[in-house]
Structure formats: C-alpha cells, structure tokens
C-alpha cells in the first residue's frame, strides 16, 4: 500500500479531574503561582455569570448565554493573548474578554439590548459578539491576513462551538488560513451541545480537532476543563503563529453546564446523569484542589475573594442598570460615516415623532 499522507492528533491533559497531575506539567506553567491569578479570574467570571442569570430571571436583562463550565477554556484563551492581538468571540467567552479588558457592564448592555455593549473601551480592535455562528472565524482569518500582509507581529484568535465547527464559515476560515499560512488560532470549544443537538450529530469526525487537517493546519485536542492544558495548547499555537508557521485548530473538550441560553430549557433534550457526571469534571474543582495542595489557596481566601467578586460585579451591574436608553437618533447615527440626505430626513422625523410621543405621554 502506498501512503499519500499520515496524520496524528495529540491530546493534552495535565491536571486530572481530581486536581492531581496526570503528566509532567509544561515548563511554562510548572510554577502553580502562575495559575493563581487565573483561578481567581475564573471565580470572578463564575460570579458574573451567576449574577447575570439572576438578572435575566428578574427581567432586568434580555436573553443571556451563560458560560458555566467553560471558565478554564475562556480564561486560558484570554490569558494567552497579547493586547495587540485580535480576539473574535462567539457570544459566551466572557472569561476571555475580561482578560482583554472588556468590561462586564458592556456584556450586560449587549444582552440588555443596547449596541453600546459592543463599543469596548478596552480592546479597541477586538470583534464584537457574533450571533451568526462561526462567521467570526472567517473574519478573524481576514484579520490575520491583514497582519501578515502588513508584517505585524499579531495573532488573531477566534472561538466557536462544536456546533459552530459544522458551519461552512469555519471551514472557510481554516481553508484560507492554510492557503495563506496565517497567524490564526481557531478555538473550537466543544461543550457537547449545540442547543439541543449533541456533538455526535454534527459530524462523522472522531475529533473536531482533525478538521484542521483539511486545511493543513496544526491540530490539537485538549481537556478544556484543565487550565494548564488550555494554556499549553494556546502557547504552542500562538508561538507557531508568531513564528510564521501558520494556523491551528484546537479542540477544547468541556461541557455546557447551563441551558444553552436563558431562553432554553435543556431538560427537554438531555439527561440529568450526563450533567451530573460533567459536574465532577468541571474546571474549578481540579484547579482549586491543585492550588490548595500547593498551599496557595484555602477556604478563607476563597470566601474573601468571592465576596470581593460579588462587590466588583455589583458595581458593573449598577453601571449597566443606570445606563440610559440611547436616544432615538442612535439608530441612524452609526450607519454611515457619511450619512445620506434621505436618512437624515428620516432621523429628523423620528426625533420629532419621539418628542411628540413624549409630550403626549407627559400630558
């Protein structure tokens, strides 16, 4: 038999679900102290997530996509990027975005029905949340192409889900990244479900990582609940990107512990057992154990930090709740850099109508 090509996909895991190392930790992350701030960040993210869900349940937020269970993957990705890199999220990677300077109030504004949530005060070039699945991956490929053409030492990182890895835009992203050898890292966050559709129904591929083979990319599958594995995978991929070795597809194996969004009811389509089992593998548990074993963390510290997180998140929530609705003209003011006359006339009419309505209401 003549062989035309051969491939092998590596799997990375360092911390087992019980917090014990299952392999020698990579050099860069061998000192547990480097992990501590990220663990704290994961706790902060979970606090934010919990409070956001509560906010939605009390009618103070629109539909919200929780990130429960994804904290290690999200925070690890964010931690692996440089400020000048560009991040292209889907819609639940708050952990990564906070690391890049997106403010929680911006997240809330977006899910609260206000476009200003996308006007990040921190990472000015990062992409906004992206509702059309996986289109962010291809835009990120375009961003990476622009870096390469301008010889900028920058990497584009995009996230999508297991469902998103079926989307043609995801394939277009990896195809183009391969064709142009781009500094692109495609992070496939496999949380087992795309709303109600299980991973197995998305594709006949054994791993989602292997999709990268289709474009000649570097492929890795990692335990996405293991922060160390996430960091190591991202380290390798961003290094390759910076060295001109091209793009990567990384599959992060994690689990969506919450409903798809607050508009969803996962009990319709998935069993309790599966969720229960997933809770034993969730990312906080093992990292807390590992840091506790390393004498870097204890219950008291956790309690204090969670209180601090609550306080910090509440500041953001209040800032969100206090943000006034945009004036009616906001729907006209960001459409064109050079707005056409007809639009300006509509704008004026809308303002007049709004004023009249207000006056009517006020008697």
């Amino acid at each position: 038999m003549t062989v035309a090509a051969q491939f092998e996909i590596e799997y990375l895991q360092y911390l087992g679900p019980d917090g014990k190392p299952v392999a020698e930790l990579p050099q860069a992350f061998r000192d547990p102290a480097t992990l501590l701030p990220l663990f704290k960040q994961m706790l902060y993210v979970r606090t934010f997530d919990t409070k956001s869900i509560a906010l939605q349940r009390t009618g103070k937020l629109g539909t919200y996509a929780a990130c429960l269970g994804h904290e290690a993957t999200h925070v690890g990705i964010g931690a692996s990027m440089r400020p000048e890199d560009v991040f292209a999220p889907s819609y639940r990677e708050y952990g990564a975005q906070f690391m890049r300077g997106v403010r929680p109030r911006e997240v809330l504004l977006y899910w609260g029905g206000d476009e200003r949530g996308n006007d990040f005060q921190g990472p000015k070039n990062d992409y906004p949340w992206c509702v059309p699945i996986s289109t962010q991956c291809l835009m990120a490929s375009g961003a990476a192409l622009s870096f390469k053409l301008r010889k900028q030492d920058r990497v584009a990182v995009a996230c999508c889900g297991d469902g998103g890895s079926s989307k043609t835009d995801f394939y277009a992203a990896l195809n183009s990244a391969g064709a142009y050898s781009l500094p692109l890292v495609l992070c496939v966050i496999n949380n087992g479900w795309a709303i109600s559709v299980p991973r197995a129904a998305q594709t006949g591929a054994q791993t989602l990582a292997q999709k990268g083979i289709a474009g000649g990319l570097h492929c890795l599958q990692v335990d996405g609940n293991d922060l160390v594995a996430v960091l190591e995978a991202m380290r390798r991929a961003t290094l390759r990107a910076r060295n001109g070795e091209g793009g990567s597809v990384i599959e992060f194996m994690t689990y969506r512990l919450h409903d798809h969004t607050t508009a969803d009811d996962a009990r319709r389509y998935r069993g309790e057992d599966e969720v229960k089992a997933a809770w034993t593998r969730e990312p906080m548990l093992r990292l807390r154990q590992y840091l506790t074993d390393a004498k870097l963390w204890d219950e008291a510290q956790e309690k204090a930090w969670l209180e601090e997180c609550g306080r910090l998140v509440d500041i953001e929530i209040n800032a969100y709740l206090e943000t006034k609705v945009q004036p009616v003209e906001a729907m006209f003011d960001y459409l064109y850099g050079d707005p056409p006359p007809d639009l300006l006339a509509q704008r004026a009419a809308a303002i007049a109508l709004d004023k009249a309505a207000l006056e009517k209401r006020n008697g």
Partner: protein
Amino acid sequence: MAEQASTATPITLIEAITQALAYEMRNDPAVLVLGEDVGVNGGVFRATAGLSATFGPERVLDTPLDETTIAGLTVGMASQGMKPVAEAQFDGFMYPMVDFIVCHAARMRYRTRGRLTCPMVLRVPWGGGIRAPEHHSEANESIFTNVPGLRVVLPSSPARAYGLLLAAIRDPDPVIFMEPKRIYRQYKELVPDDGEALPLDVCYVLRDGSDITLVTWGAQVKETLEAADALAKDGISAEVIDVATLTPLDFPTIAESVAKTGRCVIVHEAAKTAGFGAEIAARLAEECMYDLVAPVERVTGYDTHIPLFRLEMKYLPSVDKIVAAVKRAMAHA
C-alpha cells in the same frame, strides 16, 4: 402537539403551523422536516413540537449547524422526489441559504426544462418586536421578491398560516414561508384540521372600507387593524388588505380596493427603500394613477437596521405612524 391536531380548540399561529406540518406529514410520506433543533427539542419556537415523537427522527431531521447545508440538502432532496420543509431558525440566519435558493431552488425546473423540480418550503420565523438578541428580528423578505421562480408567503393569522402552509408544501415549486414571530402567540382561533389549503396567490381583504386602502403583511397586520379601528372613531373608513402572498403578487385585489377608495397607505416593517412596499406603490403608479386622489404613502421601518431591543419599537411602524399617514392622505380630496 401533533397528537392534538384534530381537536377543536382554538389555536395560535405557531400551533397552526405545527398542525399543518403534522397534517401533511400524515397525508404525504414524501414530506419531511429538517433544521436546527427541530427534532427532540421541537424547534426554538416549538413549531415542530411533537413531530419527532410522532413521525420519528427520519422525518424530522436535526441538521448540523450550517444553513448552507440545510439549503443544499433541501434542494438535493426536493429534486429527487421528496418534499422537504426546512426551517431557518431565525430570519437573520437565512442569508447563507440565498445561494441555493436563487441558483438552484428557483431554477431547477427552468434550467432542466421541467425534468427536475424543487418542491420545497423554507420556513423562517420573521420580523422584530420580541426583545430578542441581534439577528433575530429581521424583516428581509425583499431578498427574495426579485427572484423569479420563487413564491414568498407571509401569513398573519392562525387560519391563514395553516391553509397557506399546506398550500406551500403542496406547491410544485419552492416557497419561502415567513412567519411573523411577534404574533406567533398573539391570539387563538379555531382552525379545523381539515387539510384545506388556501390559494397561494391571493391577497386577503381583512376589513372593508371606503376611504382608504391599507395594505400590509405579517405582524404589522395587527397595528394596521388597530389603526383602522382608531380611524373609524374619527369617521375614516379604512379597508385593510393582508397581502399574505407577496410574490407572485395578487395585484388586482389591491387595485380593486384602491379604485374604490382612491387612497393607499402601505405598511411594512422592513426598511423603506426597496422594501416590497415599493413594488406595490410602483404598481399603483403604473396601473391606478387615475384612481388615486392622494399620493401613496409607505409606513415602514426606517432605512437603518432594526436596533437591539431597547429601541426596536421605535423602529417599527406603529398605530400612531399609520394613523398619521392616513390623515395626511385624507387631506387630499
């Protein structure tokens, strides 16, 4: 639920959709449903609730998450003798389907001189007003209205949803079937599960009037009827037409009404410029000029994207906007 299909309780528009799907799946083994989350989950709006349990997963297919895939598989199956009813989960996710709809669905019969055909339906929850996230609120019917070979249908009541969906599935050609999600559960009415389809190229006169013709479709039918009520109090008699089947358009029904009233206001939630209202106004300018005593008006979404939900109601046509337009028209004699 499919099992309740034949009971005689009033049902909502979304239940009428389910009822029609179930009816036709029982009636015709070639009919199947496909889309994201349409199976066990019954669709994000529950349009396919119960169908998987009743008809099995081979007739209610969850697809991989890709709208191109849904469109392509649908055209592939339709051209080989099945009658697929595909779902786009939301209006804003329909764009990747445009290529297959325009290049293949709308052309299969034409291209092959009738050798292959494409009897498919694409169902799409359509329009704004439900405080949903981005891309869940678009009124994008005019992407398809200039494409020959398609039918674009947009029902606005449970009964019309039922009858028109049956007609759409039975039609030998591709039908884009847009469902005004804002009024999915607005009210219930009795919709006998009798398998009776409605004609596909007929506009519905919902209210008779003599002073002005209000032409609309989709969720805006609600505001338009309310406006007609309000106007009646002011002694203005408005005829209300639900276009329901945008293309091919039943213009004669509109022309006949305008011949009587002499005035016309067109109401739709899509942006004004090159929205489908333009076509109706154009036909009036071509064919009814001598009947018109007042300029035509369009009350529509502004020429900008529908904002996120904090502002969306200010974007949409409202009773006030419609009434104001009618009053302007009535000032002409």
